[in-house]
């Protein structure tokens, strides 16, 4: 039998022990994943997730998250969520309490309130500075007047600022991927993010998109993605990774195939994290060395593991 374990991306290194503790105490993979993701969401120094997440073009932090249960293949997700730090917990409530998979925007926030999740302030000194700088960089008053904001957006889109936008958003992302397998062999994947920095308001990336940034199936394995979510959406990358496992490819083979597909779009890069039904783990990057962190119920600390660098 596979020892219960949890793995995560680089930004989860110092948090996966919280999930490992849940597993040691006999908790489910989903409890473990939620506990570890919540800790990343609470960390104001992580600029890509939860509190302190890089704001959108209007200076507002909007969160996306999803969680999937590999046994039932049920999932829950939220997108464009404001004023709530624990987006992954709202996603879990969507899974558990509603007949739906994805709630967005004010509907998601209302739902969070209804299930008793408290309002929190997502801003930090850093995000407030960014918002102020964006105001300063825009024509006077334009960011403060509700009606003028549309002109601001149009300017960005039409008057060449789109180019600048492309430049700043090349590397402005950071998502946390955490996934676990428990003593029952149940798998769970959790993904949480503030999305692309300076995104258009309401932009949704791959994180809350089941099949793009998150997928798992107890029979085959689990996958999660970070990076330019638009690419994972166009290819359903996480779903494809799990289906390649079903086809019998090796873990490395799966990662290579999935990331080569992304290279073929010639439009940016993603990274991914994978494990199979035997508890083997792997990660992949398109731009450099790839690593991920592993802990099982007997580990004393996170173990760094090497993934594959998939070149074009």
């Amino acid at each position, binding site marked *: 039998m596979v020892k219960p374990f949890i793995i995560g991306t680089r930004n989860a290194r110092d948090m996966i022990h919280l999930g490992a503790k849940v597993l040691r105490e006999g908790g489910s993979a989903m409890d473990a994943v939620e506990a570890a993701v919540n800790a990343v969401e609470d960390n104001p120094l992580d600029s890509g997730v939860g509190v302190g997440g890089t704001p*959108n073009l209007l200076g507002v932090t*909007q969160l996306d998250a999803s969680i999937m249960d590999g046994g039932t*293949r*049920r*999932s829950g997700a939220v*997108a*464009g969520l404001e004023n709530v730090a624990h987006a992954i917990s709202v996603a879990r409530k969507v899974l558990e*309490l*509603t*007949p*739906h*998979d*994805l*709630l*967005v*925007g*004010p*509907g*998601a926030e*209302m*739902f969070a*309130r*209804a*299930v*008793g999740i408290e309002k929190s302030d997502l801003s930090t000194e850093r995000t407030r500075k960014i918002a102020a700088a964006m105001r300063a960089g825009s024509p006077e008053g334009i960011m403060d007047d509700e009606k003028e*904001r*549309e*002109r601001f*957006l*149009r300017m960005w*889109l039409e008057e060449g600022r789109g180019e600048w*936008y*492309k430049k700043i*958003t090349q590397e402005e992302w950071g998502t946390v991927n955490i996934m676990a397998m428990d003593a029952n062999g149940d798998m769970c994947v959790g993904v949480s993010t503030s999305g*692309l920095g300076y*995104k*258009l*308001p*309401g*932009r*949704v*990336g791959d994180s809350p*998109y*089941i*099949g*793009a940034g998150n*997928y798992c199936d107890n029979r085959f394995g689990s996958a999660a993605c970070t990076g330019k*979510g*638009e690419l994972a*959406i*166009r*290819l*359903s990358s996480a*779903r*494809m990774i799990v*289906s390649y496992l079903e086809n019998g490819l090796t873990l490395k083979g799966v990662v290579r195939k999935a990331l080569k597909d992304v290279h073929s*779009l010639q439009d940016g890069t993603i990274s991914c994290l994978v494990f199979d039904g035997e508890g083997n783990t792997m990660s992949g990057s398109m731009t450099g060395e790839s690593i991920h962190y592993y802990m099982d119920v007997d580990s004393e600390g996170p173990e760094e593991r090497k993934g594959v660098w998939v070149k074009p």
Partner: protein
Amino acid sequence: MVKSFLIGTRNASPHLHEGIEVLRKGGSIMDAVETAVRGIEESTESGNVGVGGAPTILGDVELDASIMEGATLRTGAVASVSKYVHVISIARKVMEETPHVLLVGDGAHRFARAMGFEEWDLSTERTRMIGEAIAKDIAEDLPDDFRGKDYYVQAIKSQKLHEWYKRLSNEQYGTTNVIGMDSDGNIVVGVSTSGMSWKYPGRVGDSPIIGAGNYCDNRYGGVACTGKGELSIRLLTARMTIKYLEEGMSLEAAITKSFNEIHNLKETGTMQCIAVDKDGNTISASSARESTHWYMDVDMDEPEERPGIWVKDE
């Protein structure tokens, strides 16, 4: 060589000729799909798409849509749009004008305004009546501000909404699917919907989820789904069907495999889909009943009804 054609679900059949007219005048296959879908969105007939669409549990109409181009795998989508009717066109603008794929809610409204779309009242006498009826059915002793958010929050907390919801939501959906293919083999898929009737505010189904309710790739084919979107989201039904075509299955075999997977989830609710393969063969399928779709090519005067398959639970 294939003649340029469109296929659509039942609710699209009265509007396919609008798309075909675009092709006859030299428009692109994307223009044709967009035009046909716009026709449905403006019509109050369908009850599940565009103006007069099925409202949320708070009585508001919220629309979702997506469009995908099989040549480039480029795509655009919007979700939870309550102030604009032509969501298929906003989705196309997301694809063409932004580095993003999906915009939702208020952000989608801002974007639509910035792109010059005009606001539209999506309610009709029917949607207003439904809104009233929902409220009456949930609570006998309605507070005056029953449409208020606080009431919704209280109703979820008290579980009343869940009980009520379970009774109603098994067959409460309807979406329009239009797929086009031109004589060069370019495929475009368009999907537009008001989503599941009496959904929770902000609920997003499979229509704007690329890979779930919409996918195409010129090398293999195109697929669009309607039905309980929560099922195709969990399986990535459209994307997997295209993968099965890539692996060499026939259109019918690929669809059958996808629908068997839906049955295997053992959940309530049903799925329907329409699809084309790279050679221009068309099909439709249902997990619950006889299935048909409508076909029209550039040489036809009106659409023809084509039988599909009923994939039963075995």
